[in-house]
């Protein structure tokens, strides 16, 4: 591994938010333009740092939802009611605002199109973000999407929806608190599993009679991961990302960073 190249990734940069779009009332996509962005791989994340007037700093990790083919990076932030950072990112940040961050970080959860499939993607809430990067990366590389994850139940707050008319109808899988069941797609025509109704309190493993071939990526809040993780390790062995944290702290006033 090139040491200098890795060290360069971990410098704090200030990028510009070019677009802030709401997915749901509590979830926002922030598209960030970063001068000299060195690129990323689907599944990686960035650390975002906010600084208050008194110098207090808070750092949070957000998966990059945009594919490597997109020149600007997009993060998907779900506002937590008692959050310290997320309310600022969801409610206060506007297009044109600077944002301090570093990255991309982490190779553990990465999926690249060269790895091939089948690939099972399961997500809860804003855990969809890194999986969206993978799906969008696959679309960009193959120009075709045969692998669709489609919840038939109601999708809860915190999910990402593709725009109407796009190839991917639904990418969000709500594991809690909705009921979904798993119905296996025909193995010859589709390489992912269609999720319809799963009880969040029931082990997914008990719903599947045979393991699903190929690798998997599973992302979501810890409460969902607790029931999903053992099953995933058992029948797919793929990496699991539990990116959701609940941070207790009073709502703060964050100062806007000066642009480089």
């Amino acid at each position: 591994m090139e040491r200098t190249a890795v060290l360069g990734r971990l410098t704090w940069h200030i990028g510009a938010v070019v677009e802030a779009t709401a997915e749901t009332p509590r979830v926002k996509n922030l598209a960030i333009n970063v001068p000299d962005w060195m690129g990323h791989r689907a599944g990686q994340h960035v650390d975002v740092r906010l600084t208050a007037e008194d110098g207090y700093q808070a750092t949070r990790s957000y998966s990059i939802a945009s594919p490597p083919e997109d020149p600007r990076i997009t993060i998907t932030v779900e506002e937590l009611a008692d959050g310290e950072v997320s309310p600022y990112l969801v409610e206060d940040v506007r297009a044109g605002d600077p944002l301090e961050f570093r990255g991309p970080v982490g190779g553990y959860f990465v999926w690249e199109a060269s790895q091939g499939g089948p690939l099972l993607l399961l997500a809860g809430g804003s855990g969809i973000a890194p999986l969206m990067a993978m799906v969008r990366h696959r679309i960009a590389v193959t120009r075709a999407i045969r692998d669709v994850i489609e919840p038939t139940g109601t999708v809860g707050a915190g999910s990402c929806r593709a725009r109407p008319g796009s190839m991917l109808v639904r990418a969000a899988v709500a594991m809690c608190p909705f009921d979904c069941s798993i119905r296996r797609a025909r193995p010859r025509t589709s390489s992912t599993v269609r999720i319809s109704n799963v009880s969040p309190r029931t082990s997914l493993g008990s719903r599947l009679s045979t393991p699903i071939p190929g690798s998997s990526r599973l992302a979501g809040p810890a409460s969902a991961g607790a029931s999903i993780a053992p099953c995933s390790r058992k029948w797919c062995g793929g990496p699991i990302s539990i990116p959701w944290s609940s941070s207790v702290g009073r709502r703060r006033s964050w100062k806007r960073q000066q642009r480089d």
Partner: protein
Amino acid sequence: MESGVPDASDRRLDGNAAGGLLGEIFPFDMTMVWTMCSGCESVDRVGGQPAYMDAPGVVVRCARCDTVLIRVVHGGGRYWLDLRGAVCLQIDEQA
């Protein structure tokens, strides 16, 4: 979380969240590094272990037995790194 204190399951993230801080110390991607747990000798990558970012410092625990594998505290111009919980680290040249 009625009292405002989060329980452990809400605070738990994965080792990827510690990747940025560990990357300030190690000149390679620590999330890809294999650790052997001193408690149960299980082996996994740091990215696959539970991590707690809001403890005093950052704590990475064994996914199987909850033994503390890695503890990092950063402040006052210094990093304290406690690796007692990891018997050894395996760092692949090609990640």
